[in-house]
């Protein structure tokens, strides 16, 4: 009778061990499945080309037009586009959306894009602007660029979801 009880306990322990192993496998699977942004050369080039794009906003005089990199700084410094009679941030919002939209239209595989404009300090990052479009499916690629504006550090981060690898 005692031996039979021991056998039952061994069987029970075996089943518990099997269930734990199974659960661990599923846990690893679910952790791996969460899409993590991978640094990508493709998105880096995308962001580089975007930052060099000359806008129509001239802060001081025409034709000293800002490129997007300078426009991010101008927005952070709360400047005005003297030729357009608009705030740099307002113009940045609309022009960035139209340029990034055009870029993504030329990419059939892109299902989602997101561009974040953040101000970094000792405490952390504060979001100033975000533009996005689509629904994220497939692999996630990202790239970021840091710009120094006065004593502050600005971060431009681009995230792209692609259906095809």
């Amino acid at each position, binding site marked *: 009778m005692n031996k039979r009880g021991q056998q039952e306990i061994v069987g029970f322990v075996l089943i518990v061990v099997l269930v734990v192993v199974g659960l661990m496998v599923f846990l690893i699977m679910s952790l791996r499945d969460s899409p993590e942004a991978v640094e990508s050369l493709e998105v880096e080039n995308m962001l580089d*080309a975007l930052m060099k794009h000359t806008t129509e906003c001239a802060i001081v005089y025409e034709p000293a037009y800002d490129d997007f990199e300078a426009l991010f700084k101008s927005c952070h410094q709360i400047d005005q586009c003297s030729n357009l009679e608009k705030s740099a941030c307002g113009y940045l919002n609309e022009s960035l959306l139209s340029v990034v939209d055009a870029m993504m239209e030329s990419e059939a595989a892109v299902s989602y894009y997101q561009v974040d404009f953040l101000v970094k300090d000792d405490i952390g990052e504060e979001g100033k602007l975000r533009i996005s479009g689509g629904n994220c499916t497939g692999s996630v690629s990202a790239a970021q660029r840091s710009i120094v504006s006065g004593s502050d550090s600005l971060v431009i981060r681009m995230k792209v979801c692609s259906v095809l690898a």
Partner: protein
Amino acid sequence: MRKIGQMKIQQMAFMIMAVFLFFILVGLFFIGIQFKDVRGTAAQLQKDQAISSLRVIADMPELNYDSSETMTVDEDKLVVMSSNFSGAYNVFWPVASVGVYKIYPAFDSVKKCPGLGCNFYDIYDSGQSNVKTYSTYVSICKRVREEGSAFDRCEVGKLVVGVKINE
């Protein structure tokens, strides 16, 4: 008594088989995940390698705008290279085709440059079939003069290179 013994052996055999199958399934699952990651990484590396090769083409003096900047092409050079002059360069390009698109403003149809409202510079096309294209973003820059001052105007562009696939 003998029947109970047989039952016990049968029970144990089924249990061993179940455990064996369970571990095989877990193993297959794990191997599948591992190989999926390897395939993804290989594809990403191949893509990065192709983009690095495109960088070499974009940074050639025949296209490059400023030697201190990478991935920046000169629009004036594009105009020259996409005109009849490009015939002289037929043996120069190490690829099957080279083209540059202007991405912004967005367009519905491709209009070859030079021309009004054009958006595509066809620099070289060997006419080969069975070509795989790789593309990456570049800046298309031009020195322009406005209101008495000269400045660099850059636009977002896309360099598209065709590579012959060997069967």
